[in-house]
């Protein structure tokens, strides 16, 4: 009787663990930031920082409202360096839905934006790549303009996009 009771407890415990694990998987956080060396020439040079919508002003003070009104949930950011010289920052904004990501992307687009095949929509400038994929809006900005910056930024963007 005691053995049967223990078995039932064990089964129940396993079930609870499986349910919890399943729920956990569904809510698992996406890590869109490629590790150092994952993209040729690129090193991840900072820890990833994550800001909830309410704290976004700590990162983009003065611009947070635009993202909040478009439905930002979290913003993650990390610094990168290309071949030890070109510094860049990768911002991944997780929006409530794709419409929010579209709204941000389309704000401020200028005529010199070059359309690139990446995610649902992507534009590239000499020192930046901006794309959206589902509810994600990704902006990669380099701090210098170098001849190899556009190609390097695009390679990094493709790696980020593949992880989303």
């Amino acid at each position: 009787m005691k053995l049967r009771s223990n078995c039932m407890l064990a089964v129940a415990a396993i079930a609870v663990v499986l349910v919890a694990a399943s729920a956990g998987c569904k809510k698992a956080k996406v890590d869109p930031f490629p590790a150092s060396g994952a993209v040729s020439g690129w090193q991840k040079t900072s820890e990833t920082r994550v800001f909830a919508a309410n704290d976004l002003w700590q990162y983009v003070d003065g611009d947070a409202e635009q993202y909040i009104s478009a439905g930002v949930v979290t913003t993650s950011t990390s610094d990168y360096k290309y071949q030890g010289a070109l510094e860049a920052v990768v911002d991944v904004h997780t929006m409530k839905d794709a419409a929010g990501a579209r709204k941000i992307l389309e704000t401020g687009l200028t005529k010199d934006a070059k359309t690139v095949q990446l995610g649902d929509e992507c534009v590239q400038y000499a020192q930046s790549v901006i794309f959206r994929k589902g509810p994600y809006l990704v902006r990669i900005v380099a701090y210098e303009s170098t001849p190899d910056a556009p190609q390097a930024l695009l390679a990094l963007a493709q790696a980020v996009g593949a992880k989303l």
Partner: protein
Amino acid sequence: MNNRRDFLKTAATGAVLLGAQGKLGFAGMLDEQTAAAKSKVVVARDAQLHGTDGQLNEKRVLDLLDRAITSYTGHDHPVTAWKHIVPMGKVIGLKVNCAGGKGISTHLALTLAICERLQQAGVKPGNILVWDQANEALESGGYTIRTDPSRIRCYGSDVSGYEDQIETSGMVRVRLSKILTRECEMVMNLPILKDHGCAGLTFAMKNMYGVIKMEDVGPMHVGNCNPAIADLHCIPAIRDKVRFVLGDAISALYEGGPLFRPEHMWHPNALIVGQDRVAVDQTAWSILERKRAEVGLPTLEATGRKPHYLATAADAAHQLGVNDPQRISLMEI
């Protein structure tokens, strides 16, 4: 000395109307000002400040600064001009703006040029304090943190701390940096010209958000930062101590600010100088709008981001300066 006479007539009229600048540096140069005079703003440009490779020619920055200051004051020699701008024997704060991080912060070359001229004018290195909200921001803007009191210092308000006392002014409830309240006798405002997602424009007046404790800043962005920006400048420590704007328009953002957006950056190659903070911002706004029109962007008003705070700052309740272009004596050199 016609230039000097012009300066006496026109400098900082808006603020003087309020008596806000009565005890400012400027060593008595403002005594002869009249209420009928215009606010003087100098926009000094050097088309070759950035080379064809897009790199800043730092050697030319000092020359541009000298032209701006001598034109503004009417003095032939920059060192003499500086002697009439800053009080001696007191700590002079240089409030830079590094909130946009690397790529769109007050240029270090400009700050260093000012420091050089201040020292030549007789200001001791230990009496020059370059500062912003946080060390991290300063470092991201290319500045090196220094706290040695015998040298030019550079650090953020996170080092000095903030007053516990809450200052109230209109809708504003804020705690101020001790760098402003305790360490500096006079502050020179060194903003960088940017489009701003809320205020429309961030330049001289919006730069003072950087003297506030971070936690108090959030509510000040409602309503296009209006009337918060104007209310903030009515706090005596800001109104009385922040007395001169030496605005950095060497590089600027015409869209997507305040963070660095290289695709929306351009090089006006200019400095915008004045004592009337409202007139300086009004001038900066017109420069920003011209660029937006040039690239085919709608006006700030059309995007719902007209800098209404300028009219508020100039109104009868605030009287911080003038926003009427007819009352601004604009000197473009």
